[in-house]
C-alpha cells in the first residue's frame, strides 16, 4: 500500500494499531482512553493533530506500536469519535481495517451521569448502557434509565 506524503507525517509502524479519522481535536482524549501515558511495554505512541482529510476536512491520527486495543477501548473511542477507523498493522502492512461500530451494550466504559445512580455507589457492579439510538448516539443506563448523549466528561 503506497503511503502518501501526508500519511508520512507520522512514522510508519511495524506492528501495532493506527487510529485514523479521529474528530479533529480529540486525539488527546483518545490517548487517555488507550492509556498512552501508562504503557508498560516497548511501545511508542505518535500523534498527528490537525491533519488535512478529504472526508472530514481536518482530523487527528494516533499510532501505537506493539499494541492492539481491547474491545472496551474501541467502544470508548467509538463513543467520542464515531468517525474513527482502526487499522491493525503487522510487518508494516494493514492486516485489518474497520470503523468503530458500537455494540448493543456498553459495559464499564462510562460513569452514569446520574450521581444518585446505584452504579456510582460502592457496589461490585460495572456501569452498563444500552445503545438506544445510533445517529446521533444516545445511551440509556440499564440501572437508573438515565439517557446520555454526551460522553467525554463521563469516560471511566
Amino acid at each position, binding site marked *: 500500500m503506497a503511503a502518501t506524503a501526508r500519511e508520512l507525517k507520522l512514522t510508519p509502524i511495524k506492528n501495532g494499531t493506527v487510529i485514523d479519522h479521529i474528530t479533529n481535536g480529540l486525539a488527546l482524549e483518545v490517548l487517555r482512553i488507550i492509556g498512552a501515558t501508562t504503557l508498560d511495554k516497548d511501545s511508542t505512541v505518535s500523534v498527528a493533530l490537525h491533519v488535512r482529510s478529504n472526508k472530514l476536512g481536518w482530523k487527528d491520527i494516533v499510532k501505537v506500536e506493539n499494541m492492539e486495543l481491547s474491545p472496551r477501548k474501541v467502544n470508548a473511542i467509538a463513543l467520542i469519535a464515531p468517525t474513527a477507523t482502526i487499522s491493525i498493522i503487522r510487518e508494516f502492512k494493514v492486516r485489518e481495517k474497520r470503523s468503530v461500530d458500537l455494540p448493543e451494550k456498553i459495559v464499564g466504559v462510562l460513569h452514569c451521569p446520574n450521581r444518585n*445512580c*446505584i452504579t456510582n455507589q*460502592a457496589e*461490585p*457492579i460495572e456501569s452498563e448502557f444500552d445503545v438506544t439510538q445510533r445517529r446521533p448516539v444516545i445511551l440509556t443506563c*440499564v*440501572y*437508573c*434509565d438515565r439517557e446520555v448523549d454526551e460522553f467525554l466528561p463521563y469516560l471511566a
Partner: protein
Amino acid sequence: MSLHGRDLISIRDLSREEIEAVLAAARKMIPYAEGSKVSHSLEDKVVAMAFFEPSTRTRLSFESAVQRLGGSCITIADASVTSMRKGESLHDTIRMLSSYADAIVIRHPNEGAARLAARASDRPVLNAGDGAGQHPTQTLLDLATMQEAFGTLSGLKVVLLGDLKYGRTVHSLAHALALFGGEIVLSSPPSLALPDQARRRLEHMGAKVSEQPDIRKAVRDADVLYVTRIQKERFGDESEYRKVAGTYRIDASVLADAKPRLAVMHPLPRAGEIAPEVDDTPHAAYFRQAFLAVPVRMALLDAILAGGPKGG
C-alpha cells in the same frame, strides 16, 4: 404472558394487557383485602421487605397484602440496623436475602437499586421505589383507583400537579397513562417541571401532553387531578426547596369549576398540598387510593409467587 416468577422493576416491564390483567385480579382481591374472604395462596411463602428508606404506606400495605394471602414477611425497616452499616454492599445484602425468602420487595434511595437487586437475587424482586426512579406498584394502584372511579382508563384527561421532576410516582404513572391513550396535562412550578427526556418519551408513545401552570384552568375539564408532594429529601439545596414549597394548594375554591366527577388523587403522605376540607367532598379519592394498595399488591404477589388467580 404470565407474571409467575418475574421481577417488577419498572412499569415498562408490563404490557398494557398485563396491566389490565393485574387490575382485573386486583378487583377480585378486594373482599380478601377487606378481610371478608380468606385466601391461603401464599401460605408457604416468605416475602422479604427490604426497606432502605423510610416508608409507611408502601411497606405496611405490602405486609398486609402478604399476610392477607396467608404468607409471612421478614422485614428490614431501617437500613441503619443492618450489616450495610458495616459496609456490606446492597448486592451482598440482597443475595443473602434471596436465600431467606421467596420474593423481595425493595425500596432504596438510589436510582437503579431495584435493577441491581433483581440481578443479585435469584428470586423475584418487586421495586417499591428507587430514589427518583420507578415505583411501578404505586402506578398500578393509581390506575386501579382511576379505573374504579371511571370504569375505564381510556381517554381520561389527567392533570399531574406538583413535583414532576423528582416525583417518582408521576414518571411511572405518565408512562402508563400514555399506554392507555390518556391526555396528560402537566402543571408544576418551573423548577420542578417534567424532565425533557420523560416528556419526549411520552410524546414518542403518542401521548397528548400539554402544560398548564394555572391549576384552576388545568382542572376545569379534567377527569383526574393527581397531586404530588414536594419532597424535601429530593432537593440538594434547601433554599430551592423553600422557594417552591407551598406554591400550590388544592382547596374548595380551586375545585369550584371542576367537573362533578373530578377525582383528586395523591400518593400520600400529603404535606399541605390538599386542604382537609377537600376530604369531605366527592372529589377526594386519595383514601380509597391508599386502600387499593392492598388488593393491587395482593394481586401482584399472587401472580408472581403463586401464578395468579386459579379459575374464575
